[in-house]
């Protein structure tokens, strides 16, 4: 299977890329000065800014002399850093700017901690880094930094209950992150074995995505022994990626939402987690897992599509069987969106990269609208704007699969993954039924919530009391 190469980009775009990744991080450091009120921080931030500007100028001069589409540094101590920008990812970067703006606005309006602005800017820079990363170090750095920044933001409330929730969030997210690390380690070690076939000594490998890890399908085609090794190894390597995708995507069945009710202190962290961090596994699947495992669609469909299908049914059935509470109405569509987004990416992995970005953007924006309208409805009087936002987000979440399917079918041709087995029909039947089940229940629930029929979410004090009681027992 040929590996798609990124299109050529102009130098201006690369400079913009540097601004998108490095700029927010510098902004985060500068705004940390305000949060801590330290003169030394101000001096350090000013020094950092000067250094960044100097490096940026030097960087621009170097770029002007070459026609590079990717940015490479190193190897520095065995580590090579590579960032690649594609114009198809530009809407995603714009959406991240939008999320940052909304989070800062929400933080300011709710009077959250002084760390809101630095953490939001830091999150933006780190997620941008994940989007453009083409090496394992940058990818895992951006991801880990985003998790820790979000946790830090949640921890600033200070009381024991919120800290317990924040620690639970950190534990869960880092569990997914270390699964990611194990998955990459399995790929790196496996690649060394596959490349060594039919010889016996392990051969050289690397940590670059496009240059090393994504070359596995091509390497397997060079010798039957290589293919044989990869067939034995690929299932084991997929397990940690599966666990990482489901955990980081928030798709594993959870006992409770990691954020406590309507806490204003967690509103910004919740926004980032719901709208951005849980959507990053879509990129992981679309850019790394699917290209590596594209030669074995049945493996992808069974191991990734299967659990996601079960998750969709779990959300839809829990939404159907019981009366919908306000908290359920707030969280279930977000969880549904994560499942559907991942499922769509798994199925459209054979297509061009736009098939990854389109569902990602749809799910991200609908989650943003939903959490902005429904998540704060009870905290503020319901206005026409919120009603409109709720309806738009509900319709988007219900119609995401249909929109993505139409987009794929008419604009780019059919790229849905096929195994030529009854599994295809089974998956489609299950998917359509789950979508119908969910949509027919969500839209009436939205109507009832507009009429005030649903119960309000539990009060924060009640929630804190219940959690404390739970901790004591």
């Amino acid at each position, binding site marked *: 299977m040929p590996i798609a190469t990124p299109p050529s980009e102009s130098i201006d775009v690369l400079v913009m890329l540097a601004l998108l990744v490095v700029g927010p991080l510098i902004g985060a450091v500068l705004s940390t000065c305000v949060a801590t009120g330290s003169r030394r921080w101000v001096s350090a931030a000013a020094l950092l800014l000067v250094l960044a500007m100097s490096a940026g100028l030097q960087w621009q001069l170097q770029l002007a002399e070459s026609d590079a589409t990717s940015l490479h540094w190193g190897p520095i101590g065995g580590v090579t850093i590579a960032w690649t920008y594609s114009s198809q990812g530009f809407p995603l970067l714009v959406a991240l700017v939008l999320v940052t703006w909304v989070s800062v606005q929400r933080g300011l309006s709710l009077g959250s901690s002084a760390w809101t602005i630095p953490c939001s800017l830091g999150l933006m820079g780190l997620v941008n880094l994940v989007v453009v990363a083409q090496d*394992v170090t940058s990818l895992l750095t951006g991801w880990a930094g985003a998790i820790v920044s979000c946790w830090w933001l949640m921890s600033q409330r200070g009381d024991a209950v919120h800290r317990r929730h924040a620690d639970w969030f950190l534990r869960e997210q880092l569990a997914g992150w270390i699964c990611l690390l194990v998955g990459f*380690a399995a790929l790196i070690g496996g690649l060394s*074995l596959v490349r060594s076939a039919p010889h016996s*000594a392990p051969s050289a490998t690397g940590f670059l995505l496009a240059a090393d890890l994504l070359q596995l399908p091509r390497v397997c085609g060079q010798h039957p022994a290589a293919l044989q090794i990869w067939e*034995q190894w690929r299932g084991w390597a997929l397990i940690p990626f599966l666990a990482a995708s489901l955990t980081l995507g928030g798709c594993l069945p959870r006992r409770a939402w990691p954020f406590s009710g309507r806490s204003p202190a967690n509103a910004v962290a919740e926004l980032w987690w719901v709208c951005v961090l849980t959507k990053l596994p879509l990129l992981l699947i679309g850019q790394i897992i699917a290209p590596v495992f594209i030669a074995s669609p049945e493996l992808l469909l069974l191991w990734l599509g299967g659990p996601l299908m079960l998750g969709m049914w779990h959300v839809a059935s829990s939404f159907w069987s019981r009366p919908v509470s306000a908290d359920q109405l707030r969280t279930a569509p977000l969880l549904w969106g994560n499942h559907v987004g991942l499922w769509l990416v798994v199925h459209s992995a054979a297509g061009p990269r736009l098939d990854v970005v389109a569902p990602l953007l749809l799910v991200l924006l609908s989650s943003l609208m939903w959490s902005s309208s429904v998540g704060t409805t009870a905290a503020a009087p319901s206005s026409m704007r919120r009603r409109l936002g709720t309806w738009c987000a509900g319709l988007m979440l219900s119609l995401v699969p249909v929109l993505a399917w139409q987009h794929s079918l008419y604009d780019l041709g059919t790229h849905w993954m096929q195994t030529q087995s009854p599994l295809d029909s089974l998956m489609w039947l299950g998917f359509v039924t789950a979508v119908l089940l969910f949509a027919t229940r969500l839209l009436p629930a939205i109507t009832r919530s507009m009429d005030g029929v649903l119960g309000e979410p539990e009060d924060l004090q009640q929630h804190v009391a219940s959690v404390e009681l739970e901790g004591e027992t």
Partner: protein
Amino acid sequence: MIPLSRPESCGLLLFTIGIIVWWLRKTAWSLLHPELLPPLAVFGAAVLGSSSGREVPQGSLLLALGWAVVGCVRYWPMRWNESASRLDQLGMWLCGCGLIAWVEGATSPLALCVPVVGLGIIRWMETQSVRESPDRCGLGADAIAILLALAGLLLPTLGVAGPDPQPIWRTIALICLLTGTGWLTRLFPLPRLSRQQSTDGWEIIGPQLLPLILLPLLWLQGLPHLLVDERQLSVLMPAIILPLLLIAIRVDLSRPVGQQLQLLAGVTICGGLAAVVLAGWDLLHPELSLAAAQPLQSGRGLVPMILLLDSVGWVVLLCGLHWRHSLSGRLLLFISIWTLAGLPPTPGFWWRLELLSGLVIPHTRAPHLGLYEVAPATVVFCGLLALGMWGPMVSWLRLLRDQTEISPWESTVPAPRTAPQVVPDGDPQGTSK
């Protein structure tokens, strides 16, 4: 006689000076100026080490000298009123450094018996330091552990099991060595805390961290004498996984920071021990060595790399804890915790990634299962190793958050801000609450 041009002589010098410093705590030490002895010892060891004219392939000598220099800087100058307890600590510290340096050049089983006995001496010194409750039972167990470890080292060479002992005898010897050294270093089968109450992070270095650092180096040097079959490598796995998982569970509970640091020291060592498995594979199959799989490190290179990188992380951490109220201290704390937790792009992340990547290769190539056949047990081993690394990662980050707000030797569970409590420094158990 040991020639002066060997690393053992450096180790012997450091160990002897450590014993003298420790012994001087009860004597008229003001006449001997013991504070001059450690720098002289380090200088002498450095001269001897450089005069050997050899490189430092394993980094043990560098590790020992580095820790010895840090110890001298830490305990210099000593003051009259606190010199006795400090001499205790410094003595054990230098003895640990001496043993690490000794292991660098110890290749024969007989030479490897010296660090085992030295470990026992450090444990005895630690027992003497805790005057409140001398633990006779612990001393007896330590003696048995020394005998077990010595038996493990000498069994294949004494001819007890015949001139060419079968693999089963070597496996028994390996188990004896694992059990004995694991008990002496307080890591296996259960990670145990020192009975000494830490009021300062530096106090865990001598009795806890340096003996732990010695453990993977001892395994690394002892493995060529005991390893004949790759099945023996699977014996090492429980000795790595069990303490690692127990550390991950115990450290997650609310504990004073001193105890948390003692437990977390074991994580690095378990990583080093896992790298010893890679070194064992390279020993058995040199033609399939990981050295060809660039940029992955072979096991013999990875063990000292792990120990060196995390040693630097520990020094930076303790400096950061000391100056945590200043900007530079917080920066040091952040950097050290980030690397000790294993988050990228710090060195702690890199050895974890290289270790996990490297472990894939030998386990996939296990010949007794068939070439290129994946054994589910080894997949479980890698999974459990990653699980064991995940638990301490969360604890490190919680430590980073809490240390910026409360006293370092207080319990890490912070009091609610609505009812702040002031706890004086130096209260190891938080009993003043």
